[in-house]
């Protein structure tokens, strides 16, 4: 297939860029192969009501229509170029942003891009079986929307590898299609992306918490001195917002449905009615929140200092003029307490080494506002129950808290106490089996599975009762 703007919408001058064409001639068919093998299983021939970005203008980045997923037009978009953009932080603050990869930062930039890029196809693989248990056509469509956009994020990052990293970049791009989530021989880079997401509560938690880590990583990369990376990630953020919406409202709808079911029983035991108890939801929150915290990396990190000094990766909102005043961050420290030699000890972390922690703080604030919305539902229903976020130190496998156990409130606990506390804090196998037992598909037009409430409104001013997916081989039941 010839590579042209007809099949690959873009604003990177693909038609006259021989380097990119050469790379894509080989890569594009392999991408499609990968999508067919590893994309959503069983729905590739169906018509899905999807949003496609066809240009970066506000009129073009959200074009809605029915499309078969393999025919989705994955495009390459960068937020338009600002020729006067300067570096906003670190040792080279104020100098012009780089339009090419500086040799001395090649490895760091490559590593940042490759690590970010690998998560995009990974999540598609993790979620490939979810279509079979979709709680509604609306949710199924949202799942596929997230999936094709993660595919586009892969394109966006691969474009950077192809355009700026030469042969190494082409090899890395190829590896993106070779690794497989959960494969023993060729796993995805980050561990969190190697376990399947096989129930919808996990999917909502993933889009709420893990994708939100992605938002903050992308936000930090959007500050990068490497301008093409900044522009690529800024455009990805516009799409990412929808993924977070799916997670945030998904869990919110679970909460609303649970409230309804609680009202139906004296003892409030929603398991008798096939609902998801708040305690169980809390366990999922604990698990997904703590696992997502690990994705930020260590709270005290020399890599993060290198990235910041060099101007490769900033903080969230670094240059928005509101969040931060000091963009050099050489003189300040962050205090953090963790267990050392049996005592909770305060550590002064030089600010540049604490950039992961800074990013995680912004993330936590963002999560909290979703929590507040869900708790509002509870409050409005007159319930005293509240959902919460576990502390930073809870259940960590990465970073300064990984070497000791802490409870959800952040108190150090003995290993045995942690293990017994987990019954209360983290979903057990039985909990997960229960959630799985609720996962029955609901494909009736405008209907929703019993454990989740309908959304407030449909997609793009369409009604909730709308055939968001049209199956080629099975009937959507009319209400």
């Amino acid at each position, binding site marked *: 297939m010839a590579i042209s703007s007809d099949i690959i919408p873009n604003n990177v001058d693909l038609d006259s860029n021989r380097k990119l064409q050469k790379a894509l001639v080989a890569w594009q068919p392999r991408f499609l192969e990968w999508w067919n093998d590893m994309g959503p299983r069983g729905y590739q021939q169906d018509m899905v009501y999807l949003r496609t970005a066809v240009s970066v203008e506000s009129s073009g980045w959200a074009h809605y229509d029915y499309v078969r997923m393999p025919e989705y037009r994955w495009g390459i978009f960068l937020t338009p170029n600002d020729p006067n953009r300067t570096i906003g932080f670190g*040792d080279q603050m104020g100098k012009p942003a780089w339009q090419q990869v500086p040799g001395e930062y090649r*490895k760091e930039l*490559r*590593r940042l891009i490759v690590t970010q890029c690998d998560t995009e196809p990974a999540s598609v693989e993790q979620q490939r079986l979810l279509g079979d248990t979709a709680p509604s056509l609306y949710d199924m469509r949202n799942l596929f929307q997230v999936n094709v956009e993660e595919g586009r994020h892969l394109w966006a990052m691969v474009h950077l590898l192809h355009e700026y990293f030469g042969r190494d970049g082409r090899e890395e791009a190829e*590896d993106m299609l*070779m*690794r497989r989530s959960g494969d*023993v*021989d*060729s*796993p995805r*880079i980050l561990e969190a992306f190697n376990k399947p997401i096989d129930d919808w509560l996990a999917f909502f938690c993933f889009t709420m918490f893990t994708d939100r880590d992605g938002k903050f990583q992308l936000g930090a990369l959007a500050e990068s001195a490497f301008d093409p990376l900044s522009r690529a990630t800024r455009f990805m953020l516009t799409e990412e917002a929808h993924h977070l919406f799916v997670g945030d409202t998904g869990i919110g709808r679970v909460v609303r449905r649970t409230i309804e079911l609680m009202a139906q029983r004296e003892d409030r035991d929603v398991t008798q009615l096939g609902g998801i108890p708040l305690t169980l939801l809390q366990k999922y929150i604990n698990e997904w929140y703590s696992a997502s915290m690990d994705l930020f990396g260590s709270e005290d990190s*020399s890599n993060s*200092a*290198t990235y*910041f*000094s*060099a101007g490769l990766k900033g903080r969230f909102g670094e240059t928005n003029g509101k969040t931060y005043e000091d963009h050099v*961050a*050489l003189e300040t420290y962050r205090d953090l307490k963790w267990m050392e030699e049996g005592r909770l000890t305060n550590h002064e972390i*030089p*600010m*540049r*080494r604490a950039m992961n922690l800074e990013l995680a703080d912004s993330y936590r604030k963002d999560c909290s506002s979703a929590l507040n919305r869900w708790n509002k539902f509870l409050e409005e229903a007159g319930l005293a129950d509240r959902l919460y976020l576990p502390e930073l130190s809870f259940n960590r496998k990465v970073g300064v808290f990984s070497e000791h156990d802490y409870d959800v409130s952040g108190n150090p606990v003995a290993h045995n106490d942690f293990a017994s506390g987990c019954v209360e804090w983290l979903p057990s196998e039985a909990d997960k089996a229960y959630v799985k037992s609720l996962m029955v598909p609901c494909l009736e037009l405008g209907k929703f599975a019993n454990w989740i409430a309908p959304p407030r409104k449909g997609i793009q001013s369409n009604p909730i009762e709308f055939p968001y997916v049209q199956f080629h081989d099975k009937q959507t039941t009319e209400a």
Partner: protein
Amino acid sequence: MESSFDETTISFETQPSDYRHIRLSVNGATARIELDFHEDGLRPGYQLKLNSYDLGVDIELADAVQRLRFEHPEVGAVLITSALDGVFSSGANIFMLGLSTHAHKVNFCKYTNETRLYIEDASEFSGQRYIAGLNGIASGGGYELPMACEEIYLVDDRRSAVSLPEVPFLGVLPGTGGLTRLVDKRKVRRDLADVFSTLAEGIKGKRAVEWGLVDGIYPTSRFADEVDNRLKEAAQDADSTLKGISLDALNPKLDAETGSLQYRHVSLKVNRQERVATLRLTVPSGMTDLPSSVGDLGADWFALRAFRELDDAILRLRFHYPEVGLVLIETKGDAQDMLSLDAAMDDRKDDWFVRETLLFMKRVMKRIDCTARSFFAIIDEGSCFTGSLFELALAADRIYMLEEEGVQVEWNASNHGAFPMANGLTRLQTRFLADPAHVGKLSTMSGPIDTDSANELGLVTVSADDIDWEDEVRLAIEERVSLSPDSLTGMEANLRFAGPETMETKIFGRLSAWQNWIFQRPNAVGPSGALSLYGQPASPEFDYNRT
């Protein structure tokens, strides 16, 4: 910033039940050394994360290699692998280097280099072939260790790479023979080696095989089995009938006041004020003939015990006595005892225990060659520089010999091949590089040689009669310890290794010298040096002028 630490707390003796960093297991003809470094190192201030190592780790590694040779001669192949997920070893701990004195860094490097060479020595001469199973990333020293093995296998998981990131990351060199082994041993093409050594992220998968950086790759699911098969194959020539001996602890007596050490056969008398120590080896009288099963002698056998003591004393000298600049080597005992011991060993050199002991003696002598102290051999009344012990005199920078009736030296076959130096030559060949025929002539001579003849034959630096002797020696000592210790270190290292280069001489001479230089330069250890700023918020600033 370097900070003080009591180096005398370092012990070079350990045993498997005391290991904190590695696990040694023996299973028939094969053995495994699993790297699982405890985060607490020799001293506070750094953590040995990601299997990064310090001297304490290497002491265990060296102990394991030594014990496998003596305690498990039935083992034919040894696998070095990691117990961590995704990481084999990330090399020497950078924060440890930052905290250490220059002397500690240099001696640490030297010791680790010796351990790597001992691994190669075991593969080559002891029938214990080392195989590295890299089940995760191996960077810096973490790749240099595998390079000391005969074969390297790397897991092909699209993540695990081998790398030498010292130049791009730290502004120093791979100090444990990395660069030398790359081109000299593995014979990687120089331009590819150049690319590899500046590529911080290293090379993985197929290309690592193509470039000769590893010998094979296997996917995760097959890795353990394939490496295990290879290990068993490599162990095919092992002799299961061999029974090892057990190496006991040396436990020297330390005189807390003077710092002097007393072992069974060796003593180290220290005069801190004068910066001189006397290293004395005493041959016990009445050694019995070798029994039919030499192994029955066990670790008490003089030949083994005395050289283990000598080895420990040399290591302590390096780390515990930095102020001692000059070591006087003395031997005491009866020449006949040494001659018959040497003859018996030569006779039985095919016995595994005799072979291992001879190989060990060779290594100890090399350790002396590589020790940055001046050595003077003192040959006077009662000295026993005979046969293999004559080699200790030849290892010295100078030989002082008293002119007196009965004072003599004597050599035998052992001085003509049993103890080659790093350059591959005997100490006599190296000494008489200008006149190989002279070495031939010496080899035909036998019997005791008195001071006059020794002088004539070029075996003595200074001889003196009993009237001048004491003054002569005293003046030489005082003069020596007054000179710049740095220039002496450089001078001695230059003079000791005449003759051809080998991989070993390059590692010690060329690489260590460069490393020492780079380790002192502002670009590494200055306030804006790469090593100083490693892990710090600020980026290094180089003085870009080349020499």
